[in-house]
């Protein structure tokens, strides 16, 4: 099964990378860009047929290694 995990930085945590990219886009003339934030998506392929089971396992992986609970939230999506 294919699983997509989006890891997003918590809104209250500063995002220097987003700020810098926004500045660069303005420099390039894209002044219409109001905000930028960069997150990570992790695509996993998991050998298992039960979507609920897969979701539970991947959520555990997120808590263990994929996401940093202090700074980030995660959302798991199981497909096929």
């Amino acid at each position, binding site marked *: 099964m294919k699983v997509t995990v989006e890891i997003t930085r918590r809104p209250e945590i500063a995002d*220097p990378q987003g700020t810098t990219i926004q500045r660069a886009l303005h420099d390039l003339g894209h002044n219409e860009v109001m905000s930028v934030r960069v997150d990570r998506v992790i695509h996993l392929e998991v050998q298992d047929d039960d979507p609920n089971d897969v979701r539970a396992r991947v959520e555990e992986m997120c808590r263990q290694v994929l996401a940093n609970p202090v700074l980030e939230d995660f959302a798991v999506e199981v497909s096929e």
Partner: protein
Amino acid sequence: MTTAAQPLHRRLGMTDEEHESVLGLLRRDPLPAELAMYSVMWSEHCSYKSSRAHLRRFPTEAPWVVVGPGENAGVVDLGDGWLAALRIESHNHPSFVEPYQGAATGVGGILRDVFTMGARPIALWDQIRFGPLDDPKNRYLFNGVVSGIAGYGNAVGVPTVGGEIEFDPCYTGNPLVNVMCLGVLRREQLTLGTAGPPGTVAVLLGRATGRDGIGGASVLASASFDDESQEKRPSVQVGDPFEEKKLIEACLEMYQRGLVAGVQDLGAAGLSCATSEPAGRAGVGLDVDLDQVHVREMDMTAPELLMSESQERMMAFVPSEKVDAVLGVAERWEIDSAVVGTVTTGGTLKVRHQGEVVAEVPAASLADDAPLYDRPMRRPDWIDDLWATPALPLGGDPADVLLRLLDDPAIGSTAWVHEQYDHMLFLNTVIGPGSDGSLIRIRGTEKGLAVSSDGNGRLCHLDPRAGSARLVYEAALNVAVTGARPLAVVDNLNFGNPEKPEVMWQFRESVEGISEACEALAIPVIGGNVSFYNETEGVDIHPTPVVGLLGLADPMPRQPPRLSRAAEGMEIWEIGTGPTSNLAGSAAQRVVNDELIGRPTPPDPGAARQVIALTNGLAHRVPVLHDVSDGGLAVAVAEVCIASGIGARVAVDDPGPLFSEDPHRVIAVFDPGTVVLPIDLARQVGVIGGDSLILGRSGSIDLETLTRTHRDAIPRRMAG
């Protein structure tokens, strides 16, 4: 939860008595923003309320001291118009909450303390301590902290040229992350944290202010650590080395062009500190308009703006006619800036927000009237028991013990750590990580700056006074092997809960030990930092003072001694009073017997001075000089063999003399007949040669095994 019902001052971490003092000072109920400012400024972290009385014990004067404790960094005179600035700081609790960002922001903060003085930061050191690496949580913390130091230090462009690592179960719930920074400057660039005369304009430079790190000083760094800390997580700050790099360059340009009257960094306590301290120091007042502060989040309240610990910000105090020039420099370096205040006569700090006065307090009171605690002290009973128990003898074959020591992550190679740090930038690192002291040249002069930092929690647990004193002597010897003369000390006092009389006693003893050693060597303490409440679930860490010592080699040896310069046929001499066999607190005692007992050999100031002076002279003449510390003589010789890629034959095979860590000893390696050493202070212990290390009749270890064991000590554990 009862928190909602608690009065504001308690939610801010203030005691009722402290709240009473504020009432007494202001003769009225404080406004919320005022209470916020007092709470952070009077926190343990910012006010040193438990330690201040003891810190007065330190000797702080010498003819070469330009700025002593009390400013952002200590400054000493190096001659010919050159000055050096040095400061050390801890980021223990933030690094436990989020190791990468905690360590990264620690680096950012220590850099700001140094470039606030007008100095260009030229080198960093890290002193880090964790629980044993067989626990995955400790590996996670260790890895995160090292990546954070690398991530910030490398990107900001200041080399990390050394440090130290220790592992002990006492740090499992409470890792220690200390960072130290050295800067150099020309005398005319010296800048102080003063607000300047009335009319001077306060310009806030750098990153926009957000809600990050609110209460970091009062909440995270000034209280014990427990499960509730989980809830304190929103105070995590995120570092931006890119912004800091620009800020460094912009500030240095401002100093060079003489545009500022004073500068203060925004670290712990943020704007509260950066407004009140400089005004207090200058004996003036300040009008601040919070609406001018550039922000990253909407609807921030006045207390939030005053307490935020958003990183990479500096406050410049600028004569009014130079404000345009300062704003121009900021623009050129692509950093944000805002005029946020004006210096006034009279000493009142007046803060406005959305048209209202939200605070109006005597500026100096935030720093000067902070509470001062004389906390009870008591010598713990268990010390005598520890001293009375004789250490177990070291069983086993010495060659075997040596291999186990080299495989210890605190003794094995630090390459896994220091190869993640840029330690070569600026082309000044003559001696970098992996040796005793670091040696940094000042190009265009004959001068070399030698720096060493030393801590030893186990030694200080057994004897906080003697252990702390020995740190100073060890650091002095570490700089002596590069040909440098000790100049000054900074200290980072990492201790447990000061509300416990035993911890306070350890603290006092440690301050006493450092002071005595400094006096014996005639060097001053020029700055430092105190980190209390290093405990988890009621268990305190070992008392862990860390001493950073700056030495000056002028001239620097043309060919400084290096571990890698040993060659076939050279003699190995041990310098220092002998014989030695006390294993109390040694690495061998820990690794072989897993115990911590006995009374370590106290330092001997006379012998220390003699050995340091002798070593200092030898540094200009011998190819290898190496101080004997963790793991004793055996490890010292093994390290020379590994670095030089050659074996040695050592005449000693008694475990005592081989593994004892008694103080004031170095080994010197040189061609026969090239050096004459005083017989009462030195003895030949072996010769260099062959392709294995032979310890008397006890056995031999081939060079390859020696090298591999040493190299893999950390990597093989980090591989999981």
